[in-house]
């Protein structure tokens, strides 16, 4: 009986490899190149030990720790230590995403499209497809581990020996295998592939956040995350192998559980119940604004929670800035050049620009939905009702402006709230709110530019993402690279007074708000005038 369940796993395995004969090598090669190229570029970027050591100093701050981990061997920051600190966690995150997407693609997505039913009607075991998927994805991760390991060792960079390199590769592979196995379980629960991917990615992000919070506050907490486990190997510094057993043991348990769940349920059914929907519209869904809100509600909630967490994460570490920076002499000279202001305040100003740009993302996603709806041909029916084009446009623009405003407010509240609670109150809560909300006009301009594009050239509207990326680079890294002034000037974020460092400047804030309004109006006139494409 048990053997029967796995009947023809071999054939299905080959079939999956054949179907993905491009996809699998692309993932593998892209990840491999990223690791090798980064390691190689380090040797170029830092010519001597002193340079490496000075970059290590700048890494010692809570924000960086939250983002990439605490790092090991910072007092002797070799290329290996650098690689493990700056690249391992982030690359593992991408490997996790790869595993999730591949597993869902060959399990739940297959079922959803009704293809699996066909496979099951052939003489194949009921668990054959699930095990074939695992064989392929686990195999890919092992291959990635070995290729990365030997590849890094082959660069013969000092401090990156064979054992360390193999461990680095194994760390990536172990996280990949962990999420592959976890996803096979989750794919049993939901009825749709979207649901399975959503659940798995949420777990992935959750695991990363647990590590981030643990690393800044309580190291034991980090040991509840696979990202914490691979960090615990202290690869290239102390080379501890045993933590890599943890993800593999967990993967084994998840796999066993997935097989159990798979046997218990029917093909195409999910274990989580799907609710029957409403057969009548609620009072909310009675108008265009109601519809637009309803369509964005879920994403609004998730982004809202995300921004609150983001703000709170930064806020909880802000208090430690002083402590960290006091330890590092060089850093002190570097920042306290600005007299009369605490380091925390300077750090705060920089954080706020990043938070404002992050909050702009959901606002842009929101307004770009208008284009998405047009592309999916859903506007046609809406506009065949007594709904005017300007009304539709206005609703989407307003929704986007509101979304961005709420997101920035939430992130600032999260930051201010936790900071005030943890810092011995040298900065008032109001200062935080002011420093964050002063960016609202910049965000509105970004929405306005998108609106303008939607009116004049909807096909090109996505270029707004490059503009946002550009803004991020010039505003966040501007100080480091010393860009010419006009480069900051062409981004709305570069024209906002950086509170609490700068003075509040009514003019730039008012002018940007006016510009946003103008962009929205001109975009709307163009939108009214153009054809709605099917």
């Amino acid at each position, binding site marked *: 009986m048990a053997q029967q369940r796995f009947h023809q796993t071999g054939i299905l395995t080959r079939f999956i490899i054949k179907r993905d004969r491009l996809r699998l090598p692309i993932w593998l090669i892209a990840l491999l190149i990223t690791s090798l190229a980064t390691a190689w570029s380090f040797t170029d970027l830092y010519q001597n030990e002193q340079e490496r050591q000075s970059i290590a100093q700048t890494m010692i701050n809570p924000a960086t720790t939250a983002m990439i981990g605490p790092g090991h061997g910072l007092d002797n920051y070799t290329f290996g230590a650098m690689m493990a600190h700056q690249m391992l966690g982030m690359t593992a995150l991408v490997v996790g995403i790869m595993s999730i997407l591949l597993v869902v693609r060959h399990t739940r997505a297959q079922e959803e499209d009704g293809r699996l039913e066909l496979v099951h009607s052939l003489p194949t075991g009921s668990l054959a497809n699930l095990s074939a998927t695992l064989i392929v994805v686990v195999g890919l991760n092992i291959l990635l581990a070995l290729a990365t390991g030997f590849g890094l060792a082959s660069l013969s960079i000092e401090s990156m020996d064979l054992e360390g390199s193999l461990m680095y590769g194994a760390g990536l592979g172990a996280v990949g295998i962990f999420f592959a196995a976890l996803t096979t379980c989750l794919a049993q629960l939901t009825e*749709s592939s979207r649901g399975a991917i959503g659940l798995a990615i949420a777990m992935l992000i959750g695991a990363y956040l647990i590590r981030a919070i643990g690393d800044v506050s309580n190291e034991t907490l980090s040991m509840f995350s696979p990202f914490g486990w691979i960090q615990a190997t202290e690869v290239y510094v102390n080379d501890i192998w045993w933590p890599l057993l943890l993800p593999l043991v967990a993967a084994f348990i998840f796999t066993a559980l997935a097989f159990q769940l798979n046997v218990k349920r029917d093909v195409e059914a999910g274990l989580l119940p799907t609710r*029957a*929907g*409403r*057969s*009548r*519209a*609620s009072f909310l*869904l*009675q*108008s*265009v604004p*109601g*519809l637009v809100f*309803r*369509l964005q509600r*879920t994403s609004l909630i998730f982004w809202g929670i995300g921004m609150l967490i983001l703000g709170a994460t930064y806020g909880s570490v802000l208090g430690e800035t002083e402590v960290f920076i006091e330890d590092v002499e060089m850093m002190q000279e570097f920042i306290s050049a600005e007299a009369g202001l605490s380091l925390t305040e300077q750090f705060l100003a920089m954080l706020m620009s990043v938070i404002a740009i992050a909050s702009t993302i959901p606002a842009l996603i929101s307004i770009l939905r208008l284009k998405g709806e047009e592309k*999916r*041909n*859903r*506007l*046609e*029916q*809406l*506009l*065949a*009702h*007594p*709904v*005017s084009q300007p009304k539709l446009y206005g609703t989407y623009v307003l929704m986007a402006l509101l979304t961005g405003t709420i997101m920035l407010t939430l992130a600032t509240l999260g930051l201010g709230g936790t900071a005030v609670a943890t810092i011995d109150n040298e900065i008032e809560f109001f200062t935080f709110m002011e420093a964050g909300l002063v960016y609202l006009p910049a965000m509105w301009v970004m929405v306005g530019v998108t609106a303008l594009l939607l009116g004049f050239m909807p096909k090109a509207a996505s270029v707004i993402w490059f503009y946002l990326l550009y803004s991020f680079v010039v505003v966040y890294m501007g100080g480091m690279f010393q860009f010419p002034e006009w480069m900051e000037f062409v981004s709305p974020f570069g024209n906002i007074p950086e509170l609490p460092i700068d003075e509040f400047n009514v003019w730039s804030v008012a002018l940007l708000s006016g510009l946003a309004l103008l962009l929205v109006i001109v975009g709307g006139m163009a939108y009214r*005038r153009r*054809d*709605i494409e*099917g």
Partner: protein
Amino acid sequence: MPVLETNQLTKAFGDFNALNGVNIEVNQGEVFGFIGPNGAGKSTTIRILLGLMKASSGSASIFGRDTWKDAVEIHKRLAYVPGDVNLWPNLTGGEVIDLFGKLRGGIARERRDELIERFKLDPAKKCRTYSKGNRQKVALVAAFAADADLYILDEPTSGLDPLMERIFQECVMEARSEGKSVLLSSHILSEVERLCDRVGIIREGAIIESGTLADLRHLTRTQFVIETKQPIEGLPSLPGVHDVVEKDRSYTFQVDSEHVEKVMPHISKYGVVKLESAPPTLEDLFMRHYEGESVEAGGES
């Protein structure tokens, strides 16, 4: 005054002229069949009528108002069903129907429930899970539940099974009996023949024929199968007679509708034993235009 009227409507997409002067007219209480092959320009015409696109030249009006400028006013009294219904995946069919109803200012609940029942639609399911036919039912229920004066239906039955198609036809006939007007774009000819008072045939962006079905039948040929006692002399050379096939004194041939009158007396002289005639169908009409095209196109090779 016609309910809907277009005058020399043209539409260019870049260099390509999708419409080259479309003239159609739908009168009060009439079902107008708008037929033509794929890519002929039916949907483009309809999108202009709905005010979603601006005509390159010419004019279009509904209820005497300009379709581009007064779209919102016009839409208060109009219901539209597209051929490819795209709905929001995470709303249920029932929610979409109610939303559309509300946008028009409210729908009668009993009428809505009755139509859902008739079309056998499960309104509690998410649109994501609906088949093409079910999505079409959602749009049809929303349209017929609306108390509109004009229905614009663009190939509305392409995903429906025959049983549902029948229900759809009932709904159209009910609407007409209430004095409402319908513009029905279709390539299902039997449907058009059953429902439409007048038809317009569009090809390559221009109306090539229009009129009542009776009018158009003048342009078609009637098919005859005849057996006579004596062989018929000179049948192929009679005016208006085509495609004669003779087999043991059984003749199969076609006659141009306007010549039937003259051909019949000639045949009757030879002692008719059996006579079958098939009335001209819209399909013949359609095919003849099609053939015309392929003969022209094939002429060069």
